[in-house]
Every structure is written in C-alpha cells, then in structure tokens.
C-alpha cells in the first residue's frame, strides 16, 4: 500500500478513452433527445420542414452508430482499444466468484475480494450490456431513421413491430447507466478509477487493491 501513494499506473490509452466518451456523449444526447420526443410541444418544433428534435436524434444516432467503427478503424493507437474491448468482454474463471462477492458486499457483507485482472465481472457485464444495447438500438434505430425519411423501404407493420423494442431497450438502459454512474462517481471504493477515463491512469495503490492480477506492482505476488 505505502509504495503506491504517489505513483500512477497507466490504465486506458487515448483510443479507449475516446471510444468511451464518444459512446457516452452520443448515448446521453440520444437519451435526452429521445425522451424529449415524448413531449408533443417539443416534438412539433420544426426546422426546414423537418421536426427538429427527431431529426437531431437521428443525426446523433448516425454518430452513435459509425463513431465507434471510425475510432476502431482509423484512430492512432486503436490496437489498445481493441485489446481493452477484448479484455472487457472475455469471461474469466473467477468472474462468478467475484460477482457473488460483489452482490454480498452490496448487501453489506464483508469479505476479501477475489483477485481480478484489468476488468472485473461487473465491468464485463457492463461492457456486454452496452455492446448488445448498441447493436439493438442501432439496428432498430436504422429502421426507424429510414422510416423517418421514406416509407418506401419498410412496411408499416414491420416498422411498428420494431418501434417498441427501440423504446424499451432505451428506457431500460437508464438503469445500467445509473449503476455505471454510481460506481464511477459516488461509490467510495470504485470512485478513484474515474481518473483513468480522463488522464488514463489510476493510483497504483488503488490498482493493487482492486485489480491485483493486473497491477504491475502486485501482478506477480
């Protein structure tokens, strides 16, 4: 513990952070504009013959859809992002034990955390959720977006069968989003990790405690 007081450990490179913030920003804007569409007065606002908020929602949706691909294909240092995504999606042997521990801890139980590497099972669940939500919201969003401009591509019945999925997945996503914000901003023991999404590094002592199988100082011990 004492060794890492002032030292920092590199955790996320620029491409990973760019990917995260692009996803976060576009998703938040989509959520806000999507919720605004529920208000008839806001939805009716027009610009150039189009309804402004739905049009903005679709344009942000395009960024949400192709932004990650652009970063993964073109950004310098993209390899680190690919590695991080792989790590955050690959199950490991101790994940079930960690989840069990985390749930009990949430309920107030005390006990030693299992040794985890760069990503714990909670982070992996979070990554899987957002990956699947990204696919589902993008796929349904493409249908609704095309339907916004032309009725020639999809039939009304098909569009109407897609519509509720887009809505329910988006609304449900508020829950994992709040959970994510809770561990990132509020929960005392996980809050120190936030810095790694800004300057890319975390406190070495924190890393040794929370990700001992990954932290350079504790990896081999």
């Amino acid at each position: 513990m004492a060794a890492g007081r002032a030292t920092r450990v590199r955790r996320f490179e620029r491409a990973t952070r760019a990917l995260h913030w692009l996803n976060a920003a576009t998703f938040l804007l989509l959520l806000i504009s999507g919720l605004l569409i529920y208000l008839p007065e806001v939805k009716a606002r027009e610009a150039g013959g189009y309804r402004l908020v739905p049009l903005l929602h679709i344009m942000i949706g395009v960024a949400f859809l192709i932004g990650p691909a652009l970063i993964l294909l073109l950004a310098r240092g993209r390899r680190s992002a690919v590695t991080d995504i792989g790590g955050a999606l690959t199950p490991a042997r101790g994940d079930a034990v960690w989840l069990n521990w985390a749930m009990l801890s949430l309920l107030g139980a005390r006990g030693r955390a299992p040794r985890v590497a760069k990503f714990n099972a909670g982070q992996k669940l979070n990554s899987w959720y957002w990956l699947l939500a990204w696919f589902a919201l993008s796929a349904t969003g493409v249908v609704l977006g095309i339907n916004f401009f032309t009725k020639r591509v999809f039939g009304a019945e098909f569009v109407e069968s897609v519509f509720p999925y887009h809505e329910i997945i988006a609304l449900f996503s508020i829950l994992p989003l709040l959970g994510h914000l809770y561990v990132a901003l509020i929960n005392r023991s996980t809050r120190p990790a936030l810095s790694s999404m800004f300057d890319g590094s975390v406190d070495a002592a924190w890393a040794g405690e929370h990700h001992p199988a990954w932290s350079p100082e504790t990896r081999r011990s």
Partner: protein
Amino acid sequence: MSTSKQDSPIQISRRRLFGLTTVGAGLGYGGYRLLSRSGGFRINTVERPTPAVDPVAFRLVVDGAVERPLTLTLDQLQSLPSVKQVSDFHCVEGWGVDNVRWEGVRFQTIAEMVGVQPDAGFVTFYSEGDVYKDSFARGQALLPDVLVAYSMWERPLEQKHGYPLRLVMPRMYGYKGPKWLNRIEFVKVRETGYWERRGWAIDAWIK
C-alpha cells in the same frame, strides 16, 4: 421485525436496497406510463394550446362547392346515422395502435346530405385553431371507412385526441386525420395540407 438486528449483514444495505428498488420501480412505472398512456397513442399536435372546444357552442360547418351548405351542432351530428368501426391506426412516425374502436358518422352520409357539386374534386378538413388542415381527393374521402368520429373506445374523444370530432381515415397515416375537426369544405382545386407543405406525401396510403 425487531430492533435487535444490529449484527445483521443486511442492516446497512437496507437503505441502499430500498433506494435502488425505488429508483427501479419509479423508472419502470414512468416508462410504463409513457408507453401506455392514451392506449398506445403518442400525442401529436401543432395547434397550441391544445384546442378546448365548448360542446354547446361548437358547430361543424360543411360548405364549399355543395348544393346545401350545412351547419351542425354536436347533438345534431350525433343524431345522424352512426357506425361503429374497429380499425388499426398507423402513425407516420413508426408506431401504431391496433383495433381502435371508433364511433361516428360516415363521411359518405355527410356528403349525401349536402349534395356535392360534380366539379368539386377535393375536400379540405380544418382543425379548430386554424393551423392544421388536410385534404383528400373526393373519391378517397368517400371510401366507406372514412368517419367523422366522436367516440373512441366507447367514450367521447379525449381533448388530446381531438374532442369533439376527428377525421378517421384508416387506410392512410394518422396525419391525414385532423383532430378538433370543425369545418369540411368541398373544393375544385386541391388545398395542400399542413404536413404536405413540408414535403410529406399527399396520398399517404399505408403499405
């Protein structure tokens, strides 16, 4: 149950658990209300504020290129031969409501009452508030399932659904059915409707 539970490992977490449950339930309920309000309908209007029509003062005017222009009170309209009709509602935005139960007067009935002149090829429907209107070719409006509806699911139309009258044209998207309908005008030259002026299809048939 008792107060002597200080050692229970769940003691501290109750508040947190309660908080999470409350947030989850609140979100779920809010989402459910949003989705289910008005039986699946999302409310669209460009009339601001939403027209509040006095049923006593209300008149439906039917005029233009007709032999016998007509002004009807709500009671008079509701005493005309009426039909009940179950039809699906499709919104251009991509949502729909199946099996809406409407009640109202067939547009055909009204057209017969006023005696449409032969050269009146089009009909314009106006909303209270004077912002919204839409139009049909005469043949489209005379389809048998086009209704001037005053009831939805066995109840008078709610204000946000167009009280006291709305046009129902099940074979086209919902924007072709003006709410708060207060005037029907037969014309020789087609009027361009509110959304059609903004590039939307004039003949919004549902595929």
